[in-house]
């Protein structure tokens, strides 16, 4: 496990927060889960995070809001968006704004691994 390659997961869905970090750890990454964008921003992990797996629709600050916020803070963390809404328009918008990938739930392990590795290379 490489502590430098911390992958943070921000999703309001509990089952994602439970399952995704476990899989990421199995894939060899360090992982942390957060239930909201606000919780992530308030944590000590923002600076360490090399890849952000971010839900798009959340109560309060949304995924794209957080993306914008990080850009403003000049903390450009590579972002892999995940969403249960198969909305192509949203996908292309977030990709335009610099997201590494946007995965539609449910996504395969391979797709996840590819996206995270791409993100880490960027980082």
């Amino acid at each position, binding site marked *: 496990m490489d502590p430098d390659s911390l992958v943070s997961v921000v999703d309001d*869905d509990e*089952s*994602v927060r*439970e*399952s*995704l970090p*476990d*899989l990421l750890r*199995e*894939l060899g990454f360090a992982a942390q889960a957060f239930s909201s964008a606000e919780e992530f921003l308030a944590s000590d992990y923002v600076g360490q995070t090399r890849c952000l797996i971010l839900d798009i*629709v*959340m*109560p309060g600050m*949304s995924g794209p809001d957080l993306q914008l916020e990080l850009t403003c803070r000049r903390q450009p963390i590579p972002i892999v968006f*995940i969403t*249960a*809404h*198969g*909305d192509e328009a949203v996908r292309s918008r977030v990709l335009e704004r610099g997201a590494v990938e946007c995965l*539609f*739930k*449910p*996504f*395969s*392990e391979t797709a*996840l691994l590819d996206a995270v590795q791409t993100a880490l290379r960027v980082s």
Partner: protein
Amino acid sequence: MENELTRVVNAIPGFVWSAAPDGSVDFLNQRWCDYTGVSLEDARGSGWQTAIHPDGAPRFLDDWRSLLESGEAGQFEARFRRFDGTFRWFLISAVPLRDEAGDLVRWYGQNTDIDDRKRAEALLAGEKRLLEMVAGGCSLTVVLEALCELVEDAASGSYCSVVLVDPSGTRLEHGAAPSLPVSFITSIIGRPVNVESGPCAMAAYLNEQVIAADLTIETRWESYTWCPMALAHGLQACWSTPISSTAGKVLGAFALYYDEPQRPTSVHQSLIEQFTHIASIAIERAQSHARLTRSEAFLAEAQHLSSTGSFAWRAATDEIAWSEQLYRIFEFDQGVPVTLELIGRRVHPEDAPMWHEMIDRARSDGRDVEYELRLQMPDHSVKYLHVVAHGARNQDGQLEYIGAVQDVTERRLSEAALDKVRSELAHVARVASLGALTASIAHEVNQPLSGIITNASTCLRMLAADPPNVAGARQTAQRTIRDGHRASDVIVRLRALFSKKDATTEAVDLNESTREVIALTWSELQRSRVVLRTELGDNLPPVTGDRVQLQQVILNLLLNAAEAMRGVDDRPRQLVIRTERDEGDRVRLTLQDAGVGFEPHGVDRLFEAFYTTKRGGMGIGLSVSRSIIESHHGRLWAVPNDGPGATFSFSIPCGAPDVMGAHNVRAIATPAVTEVEHVMRDE
């Protein structure tokens, strides 16, 4: 010889007299003297005239003078007083005797007693007059009073009354008694029909004649002290006879009273028989007339209530009889003579050719007709009529149609409204439910699927590790199962919302129903960045209704609220759903949004078909929602908020016995819902 002649003259049944040419009487036979009690001496000259009834005297003297002047044989009638003061009618026949020169020498005459004939004639005339009154529609009281007066004339010294038996057959009612004291009548009216309460009640009760010839020694009706009461009014005899209908039902009693003890003679009995018969005709006629009037009133009312009028049309002459209700339907002035030309002026121009064809065909083949016809009224409104007519030949062989016309305008209009609702609902189902809901449903299913795949991948990796992480694998496998159930729950909820076919009435927990709808739309609300606050009241009583229909309403309101806030960025997209008890044992659900709202005067338009303030919005569901709530005896309304947005509420009674019209709404809703279901299955 002279004696012989005198014997003959006195033996003749009647009065014989002779008079001078100037009319002064010089001879009257003994019978005349015996009858009048006036002696020949007193009667000579014009003394006999004192025996003439004073009422008829002037007329009689005119007739007498004309006779004398004419010098011709003649006859006339007059009443003469008998020695005991009673009067009888006589026919006076006078013949002139002339000498050879033709000069009038003497008058000879004979008076014949015609009193019995006169009485019979008077009774007959009276009876005829009574029957004419009955036939002419005089009121029963007037007829019975005339009858009493006639009987009192015929049976001198009598007081006559008629009492009626009330419709229930238990009490006496007033009929007529023109000559009896009011206090006597009022003490009889209302007495029960039995053997105890009095002679009339007894006669009516037993349906047989009751004769009380001497009330001073009468012992019946003591418990009702009837005799003392009658005696106090100066009455000492009473003969009561039941009045029966032709069917044998007792209608009342006919009574004759006298102020001294008396027993009926056969003359009295035939009088009684004759007049109880006439009274029964009058009463039966009055009762059947009342029944007829009532049934005519019923008919008119029924025509009014059912918006149905009736008509008769004689094809050969075009005579038309038109019911009151038809005048109203056609908006003709009551009583205006109705002609085909007049009717034609009301027929809708587009229907006029068809109408003329119907008339021509009816005229020629005489078959029954049934058709729909539109009228164009003077104010250009349109009425829809359903016409049914039966053709038949009358006694003269002429073709006559009798028909009914029903104004079905309201039915037509509500059918049109129903069609509108139907198409609206189809639209709602397609646009609102499919557009917004499928995204939400996809999200709800994708979320657990994602968990399942992730957990399964993790599980495999943990098992493939060396050494295998069995504990971790077990945990992730358990999570897989949990997420599988979660996906399955979504499907269960969906099935509950969409797969029902028949309207049911059940106890519905509005809070739970609301939570289910929120669960289904949760992700849609989140995606729309709606901040939802739920304030579901505690201890909310269940409402009686159709759960699915109510959930469809909540769903519509929820999606509408989210839609209304789509463009809002300067404030939180706050949506409050509240349930609470409402006044009058009702439950209220309120949705308060912070959206674009609506103009206060636009409230009514909100509920119109296809009205929406939002581009691509879903305002289309509101009128359907309202009709569903109204079918639950409830009310759906909207008010603009003080601040931004609007508040939609509905209030429905708890435990309404029956969801009226739920079937109608279901009938409309089913095809649309089925359609949704099919589309969803296809995708």
